């Protein structure tokens, strides 16, 4: 599972291409515990200005907690956090940060008021907001302006909340599962919108548990689980990792060095008679096994839907933990 950790994706360096790019966000050993539950476990993270980062992980992995700390909604119990060169609270007070968070059962909008009035109010709270019409255009909420906030569908409310998040013309935007209430088409349109907004040079952090969405939108994907960074790299690396297959079989006296030299193999795990290979080209690997007359039984090639790779990355198991009969 460590195979797709990109060589450039070290947490100590901003991953954006080109040096001299300023850092927008920095986590240094952030730890936070809710009672007995360790939500963030010495998490280090760095995001460059202008970068679009996807925080990927299952529910409860620590994505929302990470965002809450970056926004100053939560004071972590240990570690330091820096946002746009200052503290989270100051960055928010300066109006440089926007966010669209998960709202649970609520809509996240004030009831009993029209969409346009809500957006106008939010604009007034910033010193240099984006022009009203520009925000409406960016979020595509023109037809919703005259509606009451409590009469919006889930997807419509999400769009309005996106408009509110960007009304202050922020440099940095956090989106926590932003497409949760949307259908497939709504999702696609929404990501196009966010892509355009990101292309204006803003820093964007998206938390999601949809691998495809993360891959499509982000310059870099950070996989988080149990409050730690599990994997970190650009989308292309992620895709390569996802293309990988697992080849499993049993054989007498497996030779680890020999197996490692087989075509396509990136990782070898041997436990007794049980062999698990990670391969970028399962066909070539199996042909190579045959060619070398390695006697095997119970051959099994698995893997590699996107979701499965994701499960693997965040799952508890090491490579050969499960389903391997001796």
């Amino acid at each position, binding site marked *: 599972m460590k195979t797709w950790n990109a060589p450039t994706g070290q947490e100590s360096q901003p991953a954006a291409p080109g040096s001299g790019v300023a850092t927008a966000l920095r986590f240094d050993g952030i730890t936070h515990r809710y009672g007995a539950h360790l939500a963030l476990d010495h998490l280090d993270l760095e995001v460059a200005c202008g970068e679009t980062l996807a925080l990927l992980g299952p529910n409860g992995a620590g994505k929302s907690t990470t965002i809450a700390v970056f926004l100053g909604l*939560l004071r972590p119990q240990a570690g330091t956090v820096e946002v746009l060169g200052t503290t989270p609270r100051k960055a928010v007070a300066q109006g440089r940060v926007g966010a669209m968070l998960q709202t*649970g059962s609520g809509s996240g909008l004030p009831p009993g008021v029209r969409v346009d009035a809500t957006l106008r109010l939010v604009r007034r709270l910033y010193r240099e907001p984006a022009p009203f019409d520009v925000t409406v255009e960016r979020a595509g909420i023109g037809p919703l302006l005259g509606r009451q906030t409590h009469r919006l569908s889930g997807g419509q409310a999400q769009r309005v909340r996106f408009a509110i998040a960007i009304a202050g013309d922020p440099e940095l935007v956090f989106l926590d599962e932003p497409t949760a209430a949307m259908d497939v088409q709504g999702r696609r349109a929404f990501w196009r919108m966010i892509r355009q907004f990101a292309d204006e040079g803003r820093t964007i952090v998206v938390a999601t548990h949809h691998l495809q969405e993360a891959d499509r939108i982000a310059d870099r994907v950070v996989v988080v689980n149990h409050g730690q960074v599990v994997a970190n790299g650009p989308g292309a690396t992620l895709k390569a990792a996802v293309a990988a297959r697992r080849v499993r079989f049993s054989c007498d006296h497996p030779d680890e060095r020999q197996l490692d030299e087989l075509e396509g193999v990136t990782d070898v795990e041997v436990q007794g008679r049980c062999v698990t290979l990670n391969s970028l080209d399962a066909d070539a690997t199996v042909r190579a096994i045959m060619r070398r007359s390695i006697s095997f039984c119970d051959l099994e090639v698995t893997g590699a839907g996107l979701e499965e790779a994701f499960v693997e990355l965040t799952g508890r198991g090491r490579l050969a933990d499960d389903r391997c009969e001796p």
Partner: protein
Amino acid sequence: MSELLAFGRFEVGRLLRSWKFLIITVGFPVIFYMLFLGDRRAGRVVDGTVPWRVYLMVSMCSFGALVAALTAGGARLSTERASGWARQLRLTPLPAWAYVAIKVTAIMLVILPVLVLVEIVGTTFGGVSLGASTWVELTALLWVTALPFAVLGVFIGFMVHAETAFPVVTALMFVLGYFGGLFNPVSSMPRALRDAAHVLPSFHDAALGLGLLDGRGLDVAHWLVLAGYAAILGLAIIVKHRIEEARGLS
């Protein structure tokens, strides 16, 4: 400063557009007033100094302010905080203190017309006649002293879960109303209840209004209790905010 005005206007506008809010805040004190007007004690004198009709109007003013404050804050605010909107505002440059201050101010602003409305009922149906300057003084006094109610409304919104806020608010309205002597003069209650009333802000609020009208003046003890309530509840809101900040507002 202009953002505070904008937020204040937004909040008052939302309150005035809410039918539920208007019906409860206007309906409760006016209907109660009308019911009590038919009371057989009408024409009597309360505490040897205040005509029953004057006592009733001042009490209903206090009750109206209490109902308005608890309805405007209370469950409404609690639901709003649970919905994620309050958290969204925390992500704007609006300071946290301003959010609380505007909430209290908006409640104070909607209390004023409630007081005037009850007073109008007082002059038209309640048989109360006062000089113009006394009307102004009484209104100003009852308005200023409604501050602890407004803070109480916000306090409930911060402390109580959205699901339980409504029954809590309803209970508070009647506990503070009845035991504070707004439906029945405290002097007509048993000794234990009379002592208990002195703990409640509603009692002191009405007592100041009555003190103004019966010439006994404004006892400083009443002011102290009311100020104490406003301060302690306000402090509790600040502490709650701090705790949420450390634990994370879900």
